[in-house]
């Protein structure tokens, strides 16, 4: 079976800092996604990528950059961390076809001091 690995699992940053989160999958999935989950709120799509070197903005892309240099990996950069920000960032991946369910990694928990 495959796995989606997110690193780091926990990330503590300073206000204004640029922070990078990484995601790797070995399912050979075409499409990869980054979601943000705030406490008590749903999943908000930040960026997604349907193939290597492709990037598509989600509903929450402001303040983030993303990069898909390889099919197996998708990174997300918080361009300037906001003070007291706390959220979980979830990476997911799936095959391109609509009948394929996205599968999620374990998440990166971000805290900004």
């Amino acid at each position: 079976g495959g796995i989606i690995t997110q690193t780091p699992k926990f990330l503590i940053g300073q206000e204004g800092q640029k922070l990078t989160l990484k995601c790797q999958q070995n399912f050979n999935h075409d499409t990869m996604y980054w979601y943000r989950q705030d406490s008590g709120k749903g999943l908000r799509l930040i960026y997604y990528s349907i193939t290597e070197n492709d990037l598509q903005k989600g509903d929450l892309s402001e303040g983030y950059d993303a990069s898909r240099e390889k099919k197996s990996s998708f990174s997300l950069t918080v361009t300037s961390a906001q003070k007291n920000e706390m959220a979980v960032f979830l990476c997911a991946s799936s095959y391109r076809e609509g009948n394929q369910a996205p599968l999620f990694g374990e998440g990166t928990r971000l805290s900004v001091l």
Partner: protein
Amino acid sequence: GDSVTQTEGLVTLTEGLPVMLNCTYQTIYSNPFLFWYVQHLNESPRLLLKSFTDNKRTEHQGFHATLHKSSSSFHLQKSSAQLSDSALYYCALRTSGGNYKPTFGKGTSLVVHP
């Protein structure tokens, strides 16, 4: 664009009672693919059920759901709630229309108490 509407917010149940979490969707495409995910505390969402066939019941781990295209619904049910069912549940939609991103509902938090 596509949309998914779930039972709002928090559902509280007594152990042993039936569970029903509502999910309705909107899409212009005739072949929707519907999914239910479950997310326990401090875990990531995990696929629970999926369905692509109209009026066919799908079951997994005691939960079941039936896609009804006539009413654009995919409600999640279980005959008897267990304490371990307490979790956040998401309904999600994908289509074959070339939009590669899934549409998630806002989630329903289920709390089962003794």
